């Protein structure tokens, strides 16, 4: 039973048409950028290397590990890919994997594939990579950094999924966000441990394939894009706080004409007990997100600083 990790592959029907199309626009632009950057990095080796490595991520997702209670988990692999081959190539690996999962195996919908590509590709890869780089700078421990990067990649993916579900008017954010980020905070532990273990094996057995001492071209622009995407997510998540309306996102969606479904104030949704409980989780998640935003901002400044010092990058 691999129910949990599958839940990040949103099926058709759960997202509205405008949100799905928006996802396609973002996914297409990021993938196009990734194709251009990896083409510059790898030249004619682009297709063979990226193709085989995408198959690697696909196969790595088949390597399961038992968790409690007879269930088993597997990794998403976005952070691992980003750490091993750099963020741009990782975007392509995830694009290939997610699109084939949807197209041939109905693992995730077709119309919503743009959003799935953004969640498991752009968001997971850039967030994972940014967190890994930053944590590596601070702790100087590759294993710890890999754990942090992998955990955050899954968490950001889940948060983005929650935001899309709520923009679509399917689930209110204050239900979907704590539910998804809560579950994936646990799933992310597995992701983090496996990613760290994979890196530690490579480090002892084949250090030659780990080349993070050689900065890949396009790293700085990748970090900027990371900041941009994470920032966007933060803004959306912070909107409810700013408007002092706990249901801000739904009202944004309603005003924008996205959703005619979110019609009544959320207060009516559930009994007061539930709202209170969810509400407090909601705000603590928001606070965690702010911490994330600060971390990303710090990372961007570090990277840009480094670039000035070492023009050879």
């Amino acid at each position, binding site marked *: 039973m691999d*129910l949990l990790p599958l*839940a990040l592959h949103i*099926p*058709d*029907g*759960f*997202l*509205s*048409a405008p949100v*799905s199309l928006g996802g396609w626009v973002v996914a297409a632009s990021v993938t196009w950028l990734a*194709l251009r950057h990896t*083409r510059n990095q790898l*030249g*004619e*080796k*682009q*297709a063979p*290397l990226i*193709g*085989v490595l*995408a*198959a*690697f991520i*696909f*196969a*790595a997702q*088949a*390597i399961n*590990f038992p*968790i*409690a209670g007879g269930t088993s988990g597997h*990794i998403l692999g976005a952070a691992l890919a980003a750490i*091993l081959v750099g963020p741009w190539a990782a975007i*392509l690996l995830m*694009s*290939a994997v997610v699109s*084939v999962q949807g*197209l*041939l*195996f*109905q693992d995730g*919908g*077709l*119309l919503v594939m743009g959003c799935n590509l953004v969640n498991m590709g752009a968001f997971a890869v850039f967030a994972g990579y940014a967190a890994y780089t930053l944590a590596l700078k601070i702790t100087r421990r590759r294993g710890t950094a890999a754990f942090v990067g992998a955990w955050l990649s899954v968490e950001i993916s889940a948060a983005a999924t929650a935001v899309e579900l709520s923009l679509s008017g399917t689930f209110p954010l204050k*239900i979907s966000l704590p539910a998804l980020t809560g579950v994936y905070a646990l799933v992310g532990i597995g992701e983090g*441990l*496996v*990613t760290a*273990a*994979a890196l530690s*094996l*490579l480090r002892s*057995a084949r250090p030659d*394939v780990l080349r993070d001492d050689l900065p890949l071209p396009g790293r700085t622009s990748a970090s900027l894009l990371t900041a941009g995407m994470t920032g966007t997510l933060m803004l959306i998540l912070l909107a409810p706080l700013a408007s002092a309306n706990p249901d801000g996102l739904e009202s944004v969606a309603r005003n924008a004409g996205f959703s*005619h*479904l*979110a*019609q009544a104030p959320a207060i009516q*949704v*559930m009994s007061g007990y539930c709202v209170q409980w969810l509400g407090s989780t909601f705000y603590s998640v928001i606070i965690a997100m702010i911490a994330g935003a600060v971390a990303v901002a710090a990372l961007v400044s570090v990277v840009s600083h480094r670039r000035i010092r070492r023009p050879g990058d």
Partner: protein
Amino acid sequence: MGAVPGKSPRSRSEARRLDPRTRLLLTLLFILSINLVPVSEFWLYGVALVIVWGSILVSRAPLVKIWMRTLAALPFVMAALALPFTTPGPAVWTVPGIGWQLSRNGLELFGAVLARFLLAVQAAVTLASVTPAHELFQALGRIGVPTALVAIIGLMYRYLSVLGDDAARMLRARSARTSRAPGGKRPSLLWQTRVAGSMIGSLFVRAVARGDRLHMAMRSRGFDGTVRTLNKRRLHWIDWAMLSVAGVAALWMFYWRFI
């Protein structure tokens, strides 16, 4: 996936078949259209159901496979089950004891999500089971997906079986070594993830070596980084006709919903 390409001769039934591009675009337009159906217009889902089941019959897609795949996707229905409780609207029923309210709008939304989901899954399974994978990939390239990405996807699909075999071998070796006596101590999560991580690490080493050799094999046969293909099949009038109908339907749904 589906029929082995080129196995059947180019017979009448082959000629009658829609171009893979058409099938792909029709599926996308169909899923887009059902996503635009207003929640109150449930009869349209009936129309959509007739279309899906009609195309399943016409394309002679394997029914068993379609239902197996549909059922495999059912866990999401469990997520959708929360909808009647989480959607604001007039309450029709309150769960005794905990006080959760079942809303009318929530029930409608649940029905809509379920209908859109089932229709879309069946359309997607039909597409995948009547179109061989490599034809689908080619179709992607010919409807505007960058050819470099299509080449990557094609190579990934090809090497999935090779690396998948490697992964399967590792999993078998692991289960051969970790079978424990009844009542024996259960290995910790930390240990389990270490094992899985090591397997993924060695898989990566194999993949990188495979990528190098593949690159050499491609270069040896003159590969220069560009993507070249044969097989420029033209769209038949029936393709254009079907696409026009589906396009108009989607536009109409869009107009109805938003304008």
